[in-house]
């Protein structure tokens, strides 16, 4: 074998603490190395061209590039060696940036370590074989998890492009958080007026199948061919018969149920249609509050239903579908702000969340769009907004900025003035974060035209006194303490990953961060991909964002999914396991450890043997390490290749 070695400077990233030319000189003496050089930027066009030219000039049959992490540029260099006429697997990469230059300053030690890593890569490369991918057909169907604005956008875009779309929504209606909002910033246009038609489009689009009040139960398979099991939760109402007339919700005698859609601003019934524009507009029973389930008798809804749709015995159902790609768009939830004892921890009824306030502002909300204090129903005159509640606060484990609160608080202050012209709003803020288009102008308008008083400082305490709430805080611009008498306090509560996000991520086999947000493939360059092929992200599940960004990401995820599913066949990764039937004793240990169900038992002349399903295997290597007989080998990472690396490292 004729190996060429290229040591990348990465500008000063590597060359700053590694003697690249020295490493190249040492590499020239490694077995089978016939050409060795250092290079300014291996990934740039001149760098790639130099690699290709060297292959041709020196008749190289394998290439080692020592540069950054393979996560970054392995595909780049594989393509380059392919252009040079080699098989793409006749290439090895040594990571001397993340593993060497960035983590140590000792030039000599770094240079030694870099040289060792290059020696390992070259030793492994000597045993590399040419590998060829196989191709398999793609299921041209997309699953969208979550029916908020991001999911709706992704579903509509994909459906318009001709894909079949399955949408799964946990709640009885789609619309997500946006459906709860009264108006949107910075245009103050009606939220349900712009979202409503999109929701209707989802319901009516011939390419979209909607499973509301359903959750993802199981996912198996792989990119292009995922097998998905959907749990349709029992609504106790036959939605084929339900016409959404609402008679049942009028007659239901259990009138003190928690109204999830209205954030508990007013009570609701046990059988509900969440709101007038709900999609699907069908009734469902909340069993926790239903008398039939709790007291064993009632049956009023069943009696009044003109179509006989109520079925108390209904059980959860399961639907199995095959899809080629998945878009996760599960959104966010508000942080439980009652951890703040200094704000009353939920003991004071006139301290409400921003989302509850939206429902009070909304004409279709429980107060009919009239702002009323929950305690006595009176119209408030002084309204205090407290920003950064459970945002930018490490003491409650939420050090990040939620990003949208500054803007919605400004909007709510404007709406407060519109609803109650003689009211006065106060906004306690840390910084005003308004970097969007037209955003900063908006936060100025609320102060200059609507007279909201912005106080820069944190609120230390909220407590009731004489029928009002005293809000005590700091004014850091004036360098003093302030106390404001409020009739109503609105907490701009920050967001967190939707409940159950980590569990869903584990089902989808995608990564999530310490807060439960799903990890994108690359923070800059792969914002909607994940590290699992075929799974894409849209909206706040990836990180909190406002409506325009969520919609943009929804479209971006759809574009990625459309690109994937536009192909008839996909190449499978040839770096997979294979079983040597002569050595296999049929002990089934590999079948037990395989996380992808990629190994099956076959019968070979009366003997049980393991067999790898090539398209399912992800090449993780668990079976390889588990097999007591050494019967399983992972292509491109064979035992001999690993041992060659170890030997290269432990020569003395």
């Amino acid at each position: 074998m004729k190996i060429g070695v290229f040591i990348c400077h990465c500008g000063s990233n590597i060359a700053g603490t590694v003697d690249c030319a020295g490493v190249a000189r040492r590499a020239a003496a490694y077995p089978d190395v016939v050409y060795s050089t250092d290079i300014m930027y291996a990934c740039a066009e001149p760098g790639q061209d130099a690699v290709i030219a060297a292959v041709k000039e020196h008749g190289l049959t394998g290439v080692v590039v020592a540069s950054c992490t393979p996560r970054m540029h392995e595909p780049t260099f594989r393509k380059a060696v392919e252009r040079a006429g080699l098989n793409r697997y006749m290439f090895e990469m040594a990571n001397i940036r993340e593993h060497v230059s960035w983590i140590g300053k000792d030039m000599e030690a770094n240079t030694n370590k870099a040289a060792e890593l290059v020696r390992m890569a070259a030793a492994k490369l000597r045993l590399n074989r040419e590998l060829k991918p196989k191709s398999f057909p793609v299921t041209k169907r997309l699953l969208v998890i979550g029916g908020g604005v991001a999911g709706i956008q992704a579903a509509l875009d994909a459906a318009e492009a001709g894909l079949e779309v399955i949408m799964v929504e946990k709640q009885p209606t789609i619309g997500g958080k946006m459906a709860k909002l009264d108006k949107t910033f910075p245009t103050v246009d009606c939220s349900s007026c712009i979202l409503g038609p999109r929701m209707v489009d989802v319901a009516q689009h011939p390419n979209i199948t909607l499973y509301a009040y359903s959750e993802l139960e199981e996912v198996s398979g792989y990119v292009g061919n995922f097998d998905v099991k959907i749990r349709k939760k029992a609504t106790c109402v036959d939605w084929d018969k339900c016409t959404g007339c609402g008679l049942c919700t009028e007659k239901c005698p259990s009138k003190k149920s928690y109204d999830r859609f209205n954030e508990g601003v007013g009570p609701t019934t046990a059988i509900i249609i969440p709101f007038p524009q709900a999609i699907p507009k069908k009734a469902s029973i909340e069993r926790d509050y239903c008398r039939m389930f709790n007291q064993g008798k009632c049956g009023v809804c069943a009696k009044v239903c003109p179509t006989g749709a109520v079925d108390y015995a209904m059980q959860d159902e399961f639907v199995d579908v095959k899809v080629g790609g998945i878009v996760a768009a599960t959104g966010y939830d508000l942080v439980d702000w009652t951890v703040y004892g200094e704000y009353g921890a939920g003991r004071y009824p006139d301290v409400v969340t921003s989302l509850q306030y939206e429902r009070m502002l909304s004409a279709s909300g429980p107060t009919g769009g009239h702002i009323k204090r929950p305690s006595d129903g009176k119209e408030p005159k002084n309204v205090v907004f407290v920003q950064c509640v459970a945002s930018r606060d490490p003491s409650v484990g939420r050090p990040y900025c939620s990003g949208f609160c500054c803007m919605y608080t400004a909007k709510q202050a404007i709406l407060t003035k519109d609803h109650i012209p003689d009211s006065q709003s106060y906004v306690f803020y840390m910084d005003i974060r308004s970097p969007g288009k037209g955003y900063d102008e908006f936060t100025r308008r609320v102060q200059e035209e609507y007279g909201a008083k912005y106080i820069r400082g944190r609120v230390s305490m909220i407590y009731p006194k004489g029928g009002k709430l005293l809000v005590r805080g700091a004014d850091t611009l004036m360098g003093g303490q302030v106390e404001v008498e409020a009739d109503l306090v609105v907490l701009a509560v920050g967001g967190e990953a939707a409940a159950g996000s980590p569990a869903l991520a584990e089902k989808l086999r995608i990564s999530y961060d310490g807060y439960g947000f799903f990890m994108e493939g690359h923070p800059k360059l792969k914002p909607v991909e994940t590290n699992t092929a075929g799974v894409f992200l849209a909206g706040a599940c990836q990180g909190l964002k406002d409506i325009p960004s969520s919609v943009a990401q929804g479209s971006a995820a759809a574009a990625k999914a459309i690109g994937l599913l536009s192909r008839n066949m996909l190449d499978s990764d040839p770096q997979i396991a294979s079983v040597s039937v002569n050595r296999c004793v049929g002990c089934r240990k590999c079948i037990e450890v395989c996380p992808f169900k990629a190994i099956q038992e076959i019968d070979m002349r009366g003997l049980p043997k393991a067999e790898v399903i090539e398209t399912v295997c992800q090449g993780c290597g668990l079976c390889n390490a588990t097999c007591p007989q050494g019967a399983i080998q992972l292509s491109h990472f064979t035992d001999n290749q690993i041992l060659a690396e170890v030997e290269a490292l432990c020569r003395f």
Partner: protein
Amino acid sequence: MSRIDVGYFPGCSGLGTSMEYERSTRAVCRELGIGLREIPDWNCCGSTPAHSTDAALSAALASRVFAQGEKAGIGDMITPCPSCLKNLRAALEHLEDPLFSARVEALTERPLQMRHRIRSVLQVIIEDVGPAKIKARVRRSLKGLKVVPYYGCLMTRPEKLMRFDDPENPVALDRLLEALGAEVLAFPLKTDCCGGSFAIPARAVTPRLAGRILDMAGEAGADAVVVACPLCQMNLDLRQGQIRAGGVDRALPVPYFTQLMAYAFGLPEQEAAFRKLVQDIQPAFACMSRRAADIEAEEGKVAAAEAEKARKAAERAAKAAEKAAEKTGTKDAAADGAGKKSAAAKKPKGKADVDGGEA
């Protein structure tokens, strides 16, 4: 009652401004079976002047207290004063750091050997004794007395150091006062600052902050503000003249919780030591007695009404049973009806008994 034996650190205030706290604490602990062994030749914890000047010197003072405890074989001690508690605890925490500990040992020349624990009197009473046992010990109920519990800044904070109750909305004192029979009113300023030692560097601050607390207590309708901290007590009680000059006119007595416990346990005045308070508590007790009488009268009425209701229900049941018996003419039905009647009569009567017991 099982005995609890602990070391006791009275704190300097206990010998002077909070003598009533000290005296009532000793009496109450004796009654609850908490054996107090005073730390021999203890010294000042260092208080604010020490820890705000030099952490090592402050910890050295605390360290000597623990060393004195060790001499008497005491590793577990309690103190009535939250400020002493905070200082002693902070010292123990700092001493975990070997470098800091070496600096302190160089000063004291007495390295600590034992594992030390220090808690407040309130914490031990509420956690080791508990409201049920306290209630059982009550001889003179505080029924009719409206109180607000005032914990001050330090009893539950800093949260990580004190590790006791909810830092913003503690309830230990609430539970304790309820066990004594008092009516505990909602009090949002439970942990607000009374002004602390600001009275010395910035005199105007303390009456303003203390006034805010008294004002809120008055507005809530309290007869008394119950405290657990000598400095809070002094600011709220002794400075009522200054507070009044600042425009807040709320003449409220400010007893320590241990004083009310001593009273409720039926201990003599020299142990409750109410006479040491600046603002007289007797008007509050007079209020309490009047209200207790009213409450009892009201409860009597309710009980009578309940009994009357039960009697009528029993009559109706008996009549219904008779009718049923006449109709069917079988013995079974009559027996069944009689069973119902006795059950109906029993239930409300049982409830009245419980009420009586509480009264």
